[in-house]
């Protein structure tokens, strides 16, 4: 029996949902098992760091890397797996574009630690203990990975072959991609050009969304719990933020169909450098109050009032793409730190 191709899956700064999504492909997982040997998959099998270190370069055929780069350990693993893998896939939104972890690029490491270790309501930390990179104990020095100020996407630390978007990716899409890979490995089938986004469409989510779409003018924004959306009608028109028009299709528009605006997890479309800015610009364009005969200052106020009803714009529009956006992160000035840019 010839050697089976090797599969790896690793989690960096992630929630674990991506591994579950792989297991969620149903009985197709048996085919995966049949086709591949697992080389590394800490979530489901016991492998150690030194196992991977021991592999020859390029030993792993496909590595599904999920999670963002939050710590020095994440970065080290990314570099190691890059070296050991023929094909490295940024799997899921965190690896692709930073996702929820990268929202902490709106603040700093110190602020994050403050919240997590001191100020959180459920924290009781009278000795103000926080993680240290090095700690001296009688037995010697203990080390922990260092926690970065800025969360990065996988491709900001290593070269990436493919991107598989989604938070997490949808089962059919995962299987479709695995099929291409399997076919390439077993039958010399064609692979998409390096750098491609795989397992997603090229048109916006609206294309897949069955809700009725009309000309849009928004006079007030609502959060999902505030109103009961009228069924069958585009949510955005009803003032419920839906990032569908700024997001790649591929998910089947699952969220809008159950009354929850698209959050944007499949990332921006081809040609968009900044999904958040794009959506904000779109939304701002359809705020429909007053007209050009109104007094300029009153008009401005009317528009401001509408925009004020939009909660947490940066968290809403950059929910998944902060690390990869043109913004990347906020400057630390005025952010509770000593000023100057975060290094």
């Amino acid at each position, binding site marked *: 029996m010839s050697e089976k191709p090797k599969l790896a899956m690793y989690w960096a700064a992630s929630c674990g949902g991506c591994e579950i999504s792989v297991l969620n492909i149903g009985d197709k997982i048996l085919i995966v098992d049949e086709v591949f040997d697992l080389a590394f998959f800490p979530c489901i099998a016991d492998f150690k760091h030194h196992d991977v270190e021991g592999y020859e370069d390029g030993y792993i055929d496909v590595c599904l890397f999920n999670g963002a780069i939050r710590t020095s350990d994440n970065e080290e693993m990314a570099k190691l797996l890059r070296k050991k893998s023929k094909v490295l896939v940024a799997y899921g939104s965190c690896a692709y574009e930073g996702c929820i972890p990268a929202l902490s690029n709106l603040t700093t490491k110190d602020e994050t630690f403050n919240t997590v270790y001191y100020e959180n309501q459920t924290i009781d930390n009278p000795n103000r203990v926080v993680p240290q990179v090095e700690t001296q104990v009688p037995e010697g020095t203990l080390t922990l990975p260092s926690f970065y100020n800025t969360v990065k996407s996988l491709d900001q630390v290593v070269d990436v072959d493919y991107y598989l978007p989604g938070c997490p990716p949808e089962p059919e899409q995962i299987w479709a991609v695995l099929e291409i890979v399997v076919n390439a490995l077993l039958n010399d089938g064609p692979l998409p050009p390096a750098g491609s986004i795989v397992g997603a469409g090229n048109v916006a989510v609206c294309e897949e969304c069955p809700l009725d779409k009309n000309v849009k003018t928004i006079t007030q924004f609502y959060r999902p719990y505030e109103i009961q959306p009228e069924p069958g009608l585009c949510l955005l028109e009803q003032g419920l933020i839906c990032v569908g028009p700024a997001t790649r299709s591929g998910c089947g528009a699952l969220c809008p169909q159950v009354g929850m605006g698209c959050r944007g997890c499949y990332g921006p479309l081809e*040609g968009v450098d900044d999904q958040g800015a*794009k959506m904000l610009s779109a939304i701002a364009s359809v705020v429909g109050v007053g007209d050009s005969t109104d007094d300029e200052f009153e008009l401005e106020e009317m528009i401001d009032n509408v925009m004020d009803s939009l909660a947490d714009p940066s968290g809403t529009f950059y929910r998944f793409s902060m690390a990869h956006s043109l913004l990347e992160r906020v400057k630390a000035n005025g952010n509770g730190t000593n000023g100057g840019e975060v290094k």
Partner: protein
Amino acid sequence: MSEKVGVYVCHCGTNIAGVVDVEEVSNWAGEQPNVVCSRDYKFMCSSLGQELIEEDIKEHGLTRIVVAACSPHMHEKTFRGATERGGLNPYLFEMANIREHNSWATTDKAAATHKAKALVNGAVERVVHHQPLEPIPVEINPATLVVGGGIAGISAALELADAGNHVYLVEREPSIGGHMAQLDKTFPTLDCSACILTPKMVDVEQHPNITLYSWSEVENISGYIGNFNVTVRKKARYVIEELCTGCGICEEKCPRKVVDEVFEAGLAQRKAIYTPFPQAVPKYPVLDPPNCTYFERGKCKACQILCPTGAIDFEQEDELLEFPVGNVILATGYDLFDSNRIPQYGYGHLANVFTSLEFERMVNASGPTDGKIVLRDGESVPQSVAIVHCVGSRDNNYHEYCSKVCCMYSLKFAHLVHERIPEAEVYNFYIDIRTPGKGYEEFYNRLLEEGTHFIRGRVADVTDAARLPGEEGKLIVQAEDTLIGKQRRIPVDMVILSAGMEARHDSQDVSLMFGMGCDFDGFFTERHPKLDPVATMTEGIFIAGACQGPKDIPDSVAQGAAAAARVAGLVNQETVMMEPVRASINKETCSGCRLCNDLCPYNAIVFHEDQKLSEVITALCQGCGTCVAACPSSAINGAHFTNEQVFSEIEGILWDVMEHQAVPA
């Protein structure tokens, strides 16, 4: 991508070279990636400068051109032409503005030179991403819409019609003529206004190439240069034009009188069915339902019963007429400043304070007093008259601008008072006398000899509260005489307020309907204040006369003719080439979300329900980019303003601070 870019840095004499080290900029540019040839030259716009570009394209095989010079408004066309003559697509050219944006904005040579480099670098980085574009040919419908039948609109219509082009002239009032029809004599020559105007009005009426819609307004306009579609509301006159002979019996017999606020400026009455003045064009009367006894109480019908041709039709309704035109000339004129806004001048509560237009009607031989100058009682002849200049003009509380015609017509009024009441004293209160124009200063000198008293000072108020002997029963005009530095109180019988010209009350609505701009004062904005005074920023829409700013009759006529010449030029060409800098929607990536559907200020975006796709109608698009910015899927592309082009320009400009920043750890 490897392009061969040629960079040309213009000295513009000393305009640029006096502040920017052009040689240094050109040398530096020559070292930048993709740049294969870089020069500085005294005047790039000269034919020698343009030839440089043409020759270099041939000799060095240049594929992209950058000229760093003045504003693209000035010379983009020039250099696109040179690029094209050199054998390249004209859009493979980019201009960096190092004059208006740089050398004219600072005297700091080092900073200006640094900025010039940044601007040049931005242009170089951008131009390599340029794509060849082809202009879009559009056929021009030879018919023209002229809106407003004052002297400006009449002049434009006649010029075009005489040249063999069809004109639709739409006038809101029952008759054409505008303000000029209300005037008596016109400065500085004092020829009778009606005598020179009415022949032109008759020409309009009889011209085979002019379709006149009076008592009508434009209700809607859509389309673009060469292909506008106009909807005109022809308001019901309640008179069947085909039957009416203009005999005037209806007007004579109508029992109902109302104050004529429009033509007679409130100084006289008219009937409920009326023609505003005897020489009105067209001659058909208009019935005014709110003031008509029949409409009010269901009986009367005097006009209908007595009309010899049965031309009165109480059932008549507004008609909507639709027709295509290729170009539009707006000549909607001005409103007179409302003197009620300055209560201290007494208009409205002091009977013998008159507005200038009231006075024009009064001195008019065919006006309500047959040309006699009398007080409000209709009989007493004033023995002293004060004429107050600059009412509502040159006053920060009202209009900052000078209305341009008031000094001259105030002098005209002084002359007419001397002429009709030789014994009367006339006082002109002025801030400055402004008489630029052919024969105008001479007219002023003539008045100085006629014995007018000129008092230099802004009038503080007009009152009937007598304080000193000789003031009882008079109007007292108070002003500081700035030449002698004294407060003066002049008792007079009559005061005339020389109210200024202001934009039509509805000028903003009109500018919105026609998709062009107006300034803060409401006057329509010309494309260029000096070099393109009758065109607007919207292609195919022209302006003429006082709707563009205060002006007198000769200037209004000149603008009318100029606008007509511009239109005739376009009509002659039959097709025009439109800029290809427009938006387009990629069918493959449009998801039909409809976010863009209501955004286009030119209504260029349509939604195809069957395909669930939006589309930009190319000819309607003006390339403003609104939809491009709004499309969250990047399915809309703005030609010549692609993301790549804009971002590389920004990065190029920021060359010294860019150094692509790695994400901080």
